[in-house]
């Protein structure tokens, strides 16, 4: 190879590398890229649909905090504790906040905001030019362990997730970022809070779980496409059960959210 071309190529490569770093830097503050792939949902609509293609998307590194949300309600007064319409949030909305403008002593500004309804979460994201993740996107991003985009193959990882459910609710939620980040650089997907999803109501759990599991067994085993470890993924069962117990105006103490944004090639996210 011509030495000149060699140098040129090297230069090009370096330029690319620098560019990638710069791009990463511009998104690290708020969002990180989750590269698309295939996600196998726990419950499916018909037997042919045993896996879902998830496109690449940007995801908030952290769950939305009390401080973030306080800013939001200050500029969007209709979402204040005292002003919100019952149709859009039940009476435990922002229950632990002291009042419309103050969080109160038991609340850390850097802790994730909870007791927010789906309507409020959705509007928050939209105000930022973002949206809530779909169940598929959220589950896809959440199955990554620290080192592996699919941590569910690791039983120890599943056990660690399940331990959160084996602990009682904390009197006060810890700060964001304290649980740790996963393969994508997203923090606290397990072990901090539950999170809203755009289509949370699409889950299949009716509350009569034994019927559901029968249904699920027919679909899954019949099509023979899911290995048995999915039946052991109790944490996924519990997330599906949790989502299906909700209505869009419900708010609960351990339920918060984070936002996502579509990924388009050649577009930088601020």
């Amino acid at each position, binding site marked *: 190879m011509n030495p000149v071309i060699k140098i040129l190529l090297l230069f090009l490569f370096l330029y690319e590398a620098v560019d990638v770093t710069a791009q990463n830097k511009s998104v690290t503050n708020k969002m990180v890229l989750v590269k698309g792939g295939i996600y196998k949902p726990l419950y499916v609509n018909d037997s042919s649909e045993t896996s879902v293609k998830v496109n690449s998307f940007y995801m908030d590194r952290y769950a939305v905090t009390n401080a973030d949300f306080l800013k939001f309600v200050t500029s969007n007064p209709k979402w204040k504790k005292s002003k919100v319409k019952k149709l859009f949030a039940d009476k435990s909305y922002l229950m632990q906040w002291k009042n419309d403008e103050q969080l109160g002593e038991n609340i850390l500004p850097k802790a994730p905001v909870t007791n927010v309804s789906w309507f409020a979460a959705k509007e928050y994201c939209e105000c930022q030019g973002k949206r809530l993740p779909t169940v598929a996107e959220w589950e896809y991003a959440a199955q990554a362990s620290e080192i592996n985009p699919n941590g569910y193959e690791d039983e120890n990882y*599943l056990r660690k997730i399940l331990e959160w*459910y084996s602990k009682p*609710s904390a009197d006060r939620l810890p700060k964001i970022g304290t649980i740790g980040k996963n393969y994508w650089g997203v923090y606290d997907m397990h072990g901090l809070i539950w999170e809203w999803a755009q289509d949370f109501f699409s889950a299949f759990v009716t509350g009569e779980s034994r*019927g559901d599991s029968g249904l699920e067994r027919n679909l899954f085993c019949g099509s023979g496409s899911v290995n048995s470890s999915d039946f052991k993924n109790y944490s996924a*069962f519990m997330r599906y059960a949790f989502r299906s*117990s909700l209505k869009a105006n419900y708010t609960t103490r351990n339920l918060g959210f984070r936002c996502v944004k579509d990924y388009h090639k050649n577009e930088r996210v601020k």
Partner: protein
Amino acid sequence: MFTPFQTIKLVSKKLPAILLAIILISCESGSSDEIVGVEHAKLTQAPFVPPPITRGHATKVIIDLEVREVVKPLSEEVEYVFWTFGGDVPGSFIRVREGDLIEFHLHNHPTSKVPHNIDLHAVTGPGGGAASSFTAPGHTSIFSFKAINPGLYVYHCATAPVGLHIANGMYGLILVEPKEGLPPVDKEYYVMQSEFYTEGSYGTPGLQPFSTSKAIEETPDYVVFNGSVGALVGDKSLKANVGEKIRLYIGNGGPNLISSFHVIGEIFDLVYSEGGTLASQKNVQTTLVPAGGSAIVEFTVDVPGRFILVDHSIFRAFNKGALGMLDVKGKDNKTIYSGKQADNIYSGYLSSGESNVNPITGEINNQNGGSEYVSKFSNGETTIDPELLEAANKGEGNSKPDFSSLGQSVYTSTCAACHQNDGKGMPNVFPPLLNSDWLKKNKEAAIKTVVHGRTGEIVVNNKKFNGVMPQQNLNDDQIAAVLTYVYKKFNNSNVTVAPEEVKKTRKSK
């Protein structure tokens, strides 16, 4: 315009409705099925049961049951996050009457992490109520059902994954009393068996998370009555007086195991097997209680003492916690149970062809008195200790024993089988406790031996022994008392062992 055909169709459509109405009217007149009034159900925590229902009519019963996720002890030093109906495991006991209309309010506490629901086996309807009671944290669901079938029913949470919700403690009993009521008894108690699957093995201290793999393999670390090891032991044991008729409402929450429920030293006079309303069997030793099922047993306690409740799958009782106690106070009845009458040397004559039965009278020589028997077959030494005989005859658990009599009773029931009543042990097999130089020198080691067991060579009074002393299933008080008793009684020593010392040793394994 009606054609004759249409008219017939119309009548035939209406006819069943009319007939039904007639039946309903005839039922209501003079029947006890009519719902009269409203009341709030009074629920109780195990082992207690709400009082029998005395009203002679059906009513509307409002039940408020709160789901809470709480940290509580599963065993000494072991904690678990229990998911509860009413703050405790098992869930609150619900008592209603056949024909009652129940308005059920299921509250899920705001601090709950997960949604819950309830499936009452007493409900006729989809999911036993589960489909109508799926409740997010911080919410309340309301549904109603008519208690059509009398009987003793399990209720439990059925939210996905159902096994986990049950494994975490979400079950209890609901009694639907038959219209005519149940026959009166003196005492009623609520006992529910269940298993727990923890990451750490039995006794591993600290907050223990649930183990999915053990639950799927059905290998629990704990099998318990009323939600924790020792929930029905010592001060918390069931109480009764001699002559009283007892009824136990027994449930099995599972999630996996079937219980072989047995009360040591009692025979169930009546068993309503599987919690039905027909007393199906008399004189039962052990009754099966299916997972997600129940049984009602009745018996009269005729003699005083301590009666042990077990799952007769016996390793569950002695190694996993399936053990409870019923303490019966009152006067002895020696014609029913004598207590220990003699403890004699036995030389092995039965297998050597000799007999102690008089061939002419058929009398057993033993009945003529211990000492005659002994002089005939042995070296003339009698081991009857009048003090111990008296103690044995008194019946343990008769009253709350003080420290020294506790030591004595533990010794008689646990130690004497090997170390003998006189503490002399057995040459070459069981070391003596009487005037033991080893005991004098090794108090710490003595405690350790009782707590953890001991294997291997030991020299006592210049004699070697090489055997196994099993770990003893005794609590701190019992071990402290029995060691103090051994030091005083057999070694004329003032050495005392305090329960705290035993506790320390137990921890420092």
